[in-house]
């Protein structure tokens, strides 16, 4: 979901660079409370894993593919603030080292995938925390649903940005329909990857799953 430069006009691109900078700055400040000697290495590995999995485009329709965004995955494993930073680092490295995602578009890309995606994934996961605490099946279901919604809402970010100041003046309904349709399918893949990843971590190291922190009884997740 990395947009190139030129799809949004210059003022909108700059505006979202500001939005992204404010959001990432806020996440930097808030993340400190969630990072210690144990969770800091975990956060680094979560960012690394998201980078790796984002390379794997999976087919959704003939001639169309999708890849993990990682917002819900990061939020469930390391919390919303650290999670937003994980996805941001991935997007910055992709743009600078691999020419993947434009430079003026970086603000909008960070806003959609790192901020909107992670916040949405986290809010859905927290709303369903009681289900996640029930065991492996519950955690998998919560991971799937929050990842699916994070994908569709992040896609909506592009629709809104295009409506405010997109190039070419294409009817917004057409853009929205395509984005939502395609990302509903991509969201299924995002949900599956997130569910498998989160339950795998929980099976080995449940203490490293942010969403389950503070759970009264230790979760029994056995594979």
């Amino acid at each position, binding site marked *: *979901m*990395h*947009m*190139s*430069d*030129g*799809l949004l006009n210059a003022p909108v691109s700059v505006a979202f660079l500001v939005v992204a900078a404010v959001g990432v700055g806020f996440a*930097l400040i808030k*993340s400190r*409370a969630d*990072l*210690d*000697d144990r*969770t*800091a*290495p*975990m956060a*680094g*590995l979560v*960012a*690394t*894993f998201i*980078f*790796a*999995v984002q*390379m*794997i*485009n999976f*087919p959704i329709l003939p*001639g*169309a*593919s*999708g*890849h993990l965004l990682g917002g819900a995955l990061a939020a469930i494993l390391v919390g919303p603030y*650290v999670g937003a*930073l994980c996805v941001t*680092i991935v997007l910055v*490295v*992709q743009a*600078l*080292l*691999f*020419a*993947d995602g*434009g430079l003026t578009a970086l603000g909008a890309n960070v806003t959609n995938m790192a901020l909107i995606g992670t916040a949405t994934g986290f809010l859905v996961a927290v709303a369903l925390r009681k289900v996640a605490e029930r065991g492996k099946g519950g955690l998998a279901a919560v991971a799937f649903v929050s990842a699916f919604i994070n994908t569709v809402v992040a*896609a909506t970010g*592009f629709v809104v940005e*295009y409506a405010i100041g997109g190039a*070419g003046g*294409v009817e917004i309904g*057409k*853009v929205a329909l*395509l*984005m939502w349709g395609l*990302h509903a*399918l*991509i969201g299924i893949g995002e949900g599956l990857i997130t569910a498998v990843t989160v339950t795998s971590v929980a099976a*080995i*190291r449940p203490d*490293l799953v942010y969403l389950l922190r503070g759970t009264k009884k230790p979760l029994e997740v056995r594979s």
Partner: protein
Amino acid sequence: MKKFFIGFAVVSLLIAGVLSYFASGSPDGLDKTVEDTGIAEHAREHPFAGSTFADYAFGGDDRFTGLAGVLGVVVVLAVSFGLFWLLRKKSDAQKSDAQKSDAR
């Protein structure tokens, strides 16, 4: 504890270094949307499109995708680990260590 972290890193390396060869080459959801609507005509070339590892290749040769993937894993791990390690709350023992070294 270390085993888990090493395992997690190895999984990431294998995904980026090996599984990446099996990724679909079709446009992703956003690219497909902008192509089908004609918005893509307005896309500008990436300023770094000619750089060594552009598009997860090596000098434009995508037989080296796995190499680019491994490089990306190493860079993301170094940047993120470094940032999160600096941001983390230090334990009390480390705090007093830090104070001692500051005093020196």
